[in-house]
């Protein structure tokens, strides 16, 4: 672990300039004091109901995501690089989805194989030929980024469907400003609290062409038992729009309405936090009770905008991921600023052979999985776990991709034994509508266990506030 990039300290142990104030401040803090602050933060989160439901436990219990009180800091120059890389990638992703559902120039140009798209589960034939407002498909993208060196960033995943976590980004900031106002004031931290405003502007800007006047936007949630329900309610509240579930909405005479205590009210933009499959039982999964029957037809007719668009998942598919360098270059004409992790597609016989031989060194993930379920982290797995996974992998190789384990950077984190370096990743949020809006920073996840590389909240990872310093 010694050769991992330490975000606070140089290799010789000296402190990086943008961490100087924090480093000095940490030296004045006692563990007892920090522990008291953590308890204070947790009781605030618990009281406000900022919780995360964890699946697979006895009952879908509500848990707090561990909150680490030591912020992660980016210097302005570091952020400029990241921001340019995110903007480039997000632009390419939307151009790619538009192309996939229209002329498929990228296939014609021979940059990606046709079967990668047409035989992909994430490709949605019903979307072919449809052009949503402003030709934007993935309005909200949360790109998972890890760092391995001073200016070396890798994208692990592009979350183009319904990325979550932005409420933690905002609440972690609130908590830091409340708990450590002095420390906060000593830094020039770029503000993020206007994210809901930016989101609202983005939603308004993609109202369907047939909407005249002020668009009515809603947040569509699966309901209170969903793991991210808190975030759905939070965003609706902050944006000042209605939080609805499927049974609040209905299609009549070719328009979408919500049921109110009085006359029905027309809806123009649906920021949905339910998966494609559940969106419309008439078009997709007929058993779904979460969606709205008939919504897809009026979507295709341009009478409502669905955010993010159905079928946008083709862009964050893990098999498509491995082609991202080609995709970025094809649509932007530039070399990618952010790196892609080398990826073995296990559907390919040679790759599978290599992966089976090197399981102990690799991370193996499901092509369509998310949330850190069903994955193998070779270097930290037991012999038994590796053996079991080998059998699963042999049975359904096409279901998996493998990547080398990266030497994730670490940040100072407050754990039982005191302040110690722990591995982190970053999920910045990019909004695309009439223009692109990227909030400085993002959602930093931290693996609270020593040496662990798994930062998912469903697997016990924690969060940190992320500070982007202004020049």
């Amino acid at each position, binding site marked *: 672990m010694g050769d991992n990039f330490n975000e606070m300290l140089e290799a010789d142990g000296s402190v990086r300039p943008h961490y100087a104030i924090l480093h000095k401040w940490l030296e004045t803090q006692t563990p007892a004091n920090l522990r008291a602050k953590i308890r204070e933060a947790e009781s605030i989160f*618990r*009281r*406000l*109901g900022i919780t995360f439901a964890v699946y697979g436990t006895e009952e879908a219990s509500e848990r707090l995501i561990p909150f680490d009180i030591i912020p992660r800091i980016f210097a302005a120059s570091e952020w400029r690089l990241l921001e340019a890389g995110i903007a480039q990638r997000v632009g390419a992703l939307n151009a790619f989805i538009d192309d996939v559902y229209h002329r498929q120039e990228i296939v014609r140009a021979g940059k990606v194989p046709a079967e990668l798209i047409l035989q992909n589960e994430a490709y949605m034939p019903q979307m072919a030929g449809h052009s949503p407002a402003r030709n934007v498909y993935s309005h909200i993208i949360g790109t998972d980024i890890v760092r391995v060196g001073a200016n070396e960033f890798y994208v692990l995943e592009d979350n183009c469907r319904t990325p979550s976590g932005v409420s933690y980004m905002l609440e972690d900031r609130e908590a830091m400003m409340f708990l450590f106002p002095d420390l906060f004031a000593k830094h020039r931290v770029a503000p993020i609290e206007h994210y809901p405003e930016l989101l609202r502007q983005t939603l308004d800007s993609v109202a369907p062409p047939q909407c005249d006047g002020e668009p009515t936007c809603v947040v569509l949630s699966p*309901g*209170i038992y969903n793991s991210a*329900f808190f975030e759905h*309610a939070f965003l*609706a*509240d902050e944006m000042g729009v*209605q*939080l*609805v*579930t499927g*049974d*609040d909405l209905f299609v009549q005479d070719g328009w979408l309405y*919500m*049921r*109110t*205590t*009085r006359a029905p*009210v027309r809806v123009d933009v649906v920021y949905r936090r339910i998966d494609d499959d559940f969106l419309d039982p008439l078009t997709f999964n007929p058993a779904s009770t979460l969606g709205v029957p008939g919504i897809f037809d009026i979507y295709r007719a341009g009478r409502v905008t669905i955010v993010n668009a159905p079928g946008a998942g083709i862009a964050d598919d893990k098999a498509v991921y491995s082609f991202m360098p080609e995709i970025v270059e094809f649509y932007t004409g530039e070399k990618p600023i952010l790196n892609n992790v080398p990826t073995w597609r296990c559907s390919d016989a040679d790759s599978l052979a290599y992966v089976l031989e090197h399981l102990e060194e690799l991370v193996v993930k499901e092509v369509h999985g998310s949330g850190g379920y069903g994955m193998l982290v070779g270097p930290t797995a037991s012999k038994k776990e590796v053996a079991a996974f080998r059998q699963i992998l042999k049975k359904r190789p096409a279901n998996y991709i493998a990547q080398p384990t990266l030497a994730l950077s670490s940040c100072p984190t407050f754990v039982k034994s005191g302040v110690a370096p722990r591995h982190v990743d970053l999920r910045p949020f990019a909004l695309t509508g009439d223009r692109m809006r990227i909030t400085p920073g993002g959602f930093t996840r931290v693996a609270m266990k020593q040496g662990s590389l798994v930062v998912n909240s469903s697997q016990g990872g924690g969060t940190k506030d992320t500070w982007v310093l202004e020049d």
Partner: protein
Amino acid sequence: MLLGRTAASLFWMARYMERAENMARLIEVSYRISLMPKPFRAHQDDWSSTLKSAHCEATFADKYETASQEHVIQHLVLDRENPSSIRTSMETARNNGRAVRTALSRDVWEALNATWNELSCLRMSQLSSDKLPAFLDWIKQRSMLFRGAMLGTALRHDSFHFSQLGAFIERADNTARILDVKYHILLPRGSGPGSSIDRQQWASLLRSVSAHRAYRWAYRDASYQPWNVAQFLILNQAMPRSLLFCYDWISNESLADIEKEYGETWPCHDTATETMNLLAGADMKQIFQNGLHEFLSDFIDRNNRLTAEIASAYNFP
């Protein structure tokens, strides 16, 4: 603009909160009686009559054979199979509040959420005889905190009125049911002060709606008169748990204000006004003559009909 579902959630949130508080009060009375020496206890006053008052006999019978104190308390406080147990009521109230938290003030939400956070960890071992009274007190306090937060911080819009409808329909239902289970002890049977068991029953009845002291102030009787007790709980306009008081609020406050805001009336308005007028014009003698039990059954039916009519008028899902 208010979603039909939001209105429904506000209604049920307040209704289940009210139910939890009423349940706590009912258990408190039974517990008190169980401490009395035998001669002061009528045979009907065992724990099985508590189940009847709480309207939980059926769910209890599904799970237990004998109505021991432990079983009844377990069922009325903790059992998840019982939709009216204090735990389930609080959970339902909180889940409804959580679904519409954008429509709640932060104080209301915190009152709900903090209560549930503590209650969700509650075990039967914390409800032993010595700890039960403090627990029931706590439940009442939490309900009152919720009510106070509602009254003190909620905007007086449609959303507030829907929550009040839930609370007062539940309260009226509760008072009517408790009276109906015990109506036989209130029936007139000539003069005389009544036995000590009678007095004990009347006092318990009043206690179960937190009215035993208010009764003294309202009637200045040295002893309880059964017809006064009935009058107090049904027709007294000043008594906040009487049927008349509840309907005054439902009809003349909540539904009237919604009508003012929306400019529309529905069958629920007619039903509420009709029930209100029936109560306002009634006298106790007449009610006893026509049958107290019949009167109460009819009232409970009307009250249920009102809920259904409100749900249909305002598009509850």
